[in-house]
């Protein structure tokens, strides 16, 4: 156990030292997306790195949310939507015909803009999906998982005495952390977050941001945000989208301090968007 831990820490250390050595978690190659006749994403190529926070920024309607929803095939639910190209998670094509979309979404979890807890108790909110996925059995094992997930989402201390209360009775920020706890309870590899703090007040936002920094120790996080300060605060990598094109993608510091593209610079300096 200690050897393994030592190895992982060593690996992490090595990663930090040499960013070119980072492993790729999600690989996107030549991704095109159409809503009926209208093309919404134009040949996107992007490598998303393991256990990092990657932020997607850009003006409204630029396709960043659409892109995010490709990574766990949520766009399958839109009847007119058609996706071409390759998205691999750990080298496995998620659009492979053989693969069940439900299995994809178990590996790639999602947190939405509006907190959307199930109309059930806090406990059931978290326990439902793991039980359905046969990750745990009902009983002690499940209780342990619920506690682990809630601790993981920094929510345990606030709700441990009222697990039977409805999830919707919590405050907005707590609800969103509940949704994050629910997502990590399924033990995904990648967590997609679609503007997770845009409906929250600054204090709740700060809590969620700190949580994301904790979570990246174990998960690969891809976040869509309108808030450039937020991207600058938490992201390791940032991608700038405009009109369905990926304009610029680099590590966050470079993108914000020293953008290569004129459009990126215009956007981050507030000239449009």
């Amino acid at each position, binding site marked *: 156990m200690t050897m393994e831990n030592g190895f992982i820490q060593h690996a992490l250390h090595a990663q930090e030292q040499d960013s070119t050595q980072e492993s790729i978690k999600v690989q996107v190659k030549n991704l095109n997306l159409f809503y009926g006749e209208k093309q919404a994403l134009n040949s996107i190529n992007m490598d998303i790195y393991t256990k990092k926070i990657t932020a997607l920024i850009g003006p409204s309607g630029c396709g960043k949310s659409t892109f995010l929803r490709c990574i766990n095939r949520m766009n399958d639910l839109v009847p007119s939507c058609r996706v071409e190209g390759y998205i691999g998670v750990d080298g496995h094509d998620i659009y492979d015909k053989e693969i069940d979309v439900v299995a994809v979404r178990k590996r790639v*979890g999602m947190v939405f803009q509006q907190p959307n807890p199930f109309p059930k108790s806090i406990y059931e909110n978290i326990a439902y999906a793991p039980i359905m996925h046969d990750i745990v059995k009902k009983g002690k094992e499940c209780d342990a998982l619920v506690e682990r997930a809630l601790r993981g989402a920094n929510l345990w201390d606030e709700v441990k005495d009222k697990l039977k209360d409805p999830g919707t009775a919590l405050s907005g920020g707590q609800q969103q952390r509940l949704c994050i706890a629910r997502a990590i309870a399924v033990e995904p590899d990648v967590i997609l977050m679609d503007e997770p703090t845009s409906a929250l007040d600054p204090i709740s936002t700060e809590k969620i941001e700190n949580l994301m920094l904790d979570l990246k120790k174990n998960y690969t996080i891809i976040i869509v945000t309108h808030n450039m300060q937020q991207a600058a605060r938490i992201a390791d990598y940032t991608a700038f989208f405009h009109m369905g094109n990926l304009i610029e993608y680099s590590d966050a510091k470079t993108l914000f301090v020293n953008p290569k593209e004129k459009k990126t610079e215009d956007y981050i300096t507030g000239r449009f968007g």
Partner: protein
Amino acid sequence: MPNDKNYFYIPQIKKRNQKATLFKATTLLAIIFSISFLIFFLVDIVRAGYPAFTQTYIQMDVNINEEVVENPYSALKGKNLKIASRAWLRDLPNLIKENPSWMNTTQTLWVLANSEVDQYVKGKESRTHERERVYVDELRADGKVERKFNTIFMTTGDSKIPENSGIYASIVGTVLTIIVTMVIAFPIGVMTAIYLEEFAPDNRWTQVVEVNINNLAAIPSILFGLLGLAIFINFFGVPRSSPLVGGMTLALMCLPVIIVSSKAALKSVPSSIRQAGFGLGLTKWQIVRDHVLPLAMPGIMTGSIISIAHALGETAPLIIVGMIAFVPDAATSFTDASTVLPAQIFTWAGMPEKAYLERTAAGIMVLLVVLLSLNAVAVYLRRKFERKW
């Protein structure tokens, strides 16, 4: 100008306020109008119907011997025979069988009066002869006339003798019919709504189906009766007049309403719940069963119970499938010939005897009580499932 009164002055304000007041008064008038109709209806029905819950009994001497067992009419003499109920006399041999010690004695019994005497005692228009009226008045003065609670009305079926007719058989028929309707219409209707709302692809076919369902909800109910007659009775050979065929016919009638209201209830569940489920890798069925349906349940329940309550009061389609038939005995199974409350009320309403008039009103009261208790169940279920989340 701090004290300028014109500062808050708008030229048309008075007129605008007047219009608002007028509008408010008109809406208030409308509701007063409808409530007064309702009160008028209720008062009228109760006034006409409550006498049916009591029935006149007269104390008289009854001769009991071997001959009476053969010919019960010989038990009473003269005027007594004129005022007693034929139905009671026909039942006398059974009474004697139960009390063998009465043989060859004269018993003083409370004898059921016939309906005309009953109407006279209740102070209503009656065809009783003048001599009998005087006789009844004498008996009344002696305390030998009494109005007792009408157990016959609550325990028997229809009869050609007014004082012997009751509502029990049709209550049983109604209950059996509604059970059939619920068992068929609720699951099929809710399942259809779930498929159409959650699973069906949004194409031309689905749209055609949905438009047709909406139209079916507005079809005259008698057509469903014809459909039931043609398909269930003539084609499948389901017994005529039975709660089974009546229930199936009413189920056809309820289905469109249940489907439409269930669809609306499912649609009102926020889509964020479904998104959350998909985001966790749940299957559509898991999401619908455990997250969407519980939220939609109060709406589905309300719609279904209202539609079933509507079916409860339905007469036209049941007449077509034969549930208007004269059925004196309560059904003991789903395939027995039976009648239902509204059909029974309809039959009584067409009878010439005055005693049936009060039974018609009393029947309506019973039907209203059944309907109101169904609605109370609906409200209760709604409250129970509608937990605040």
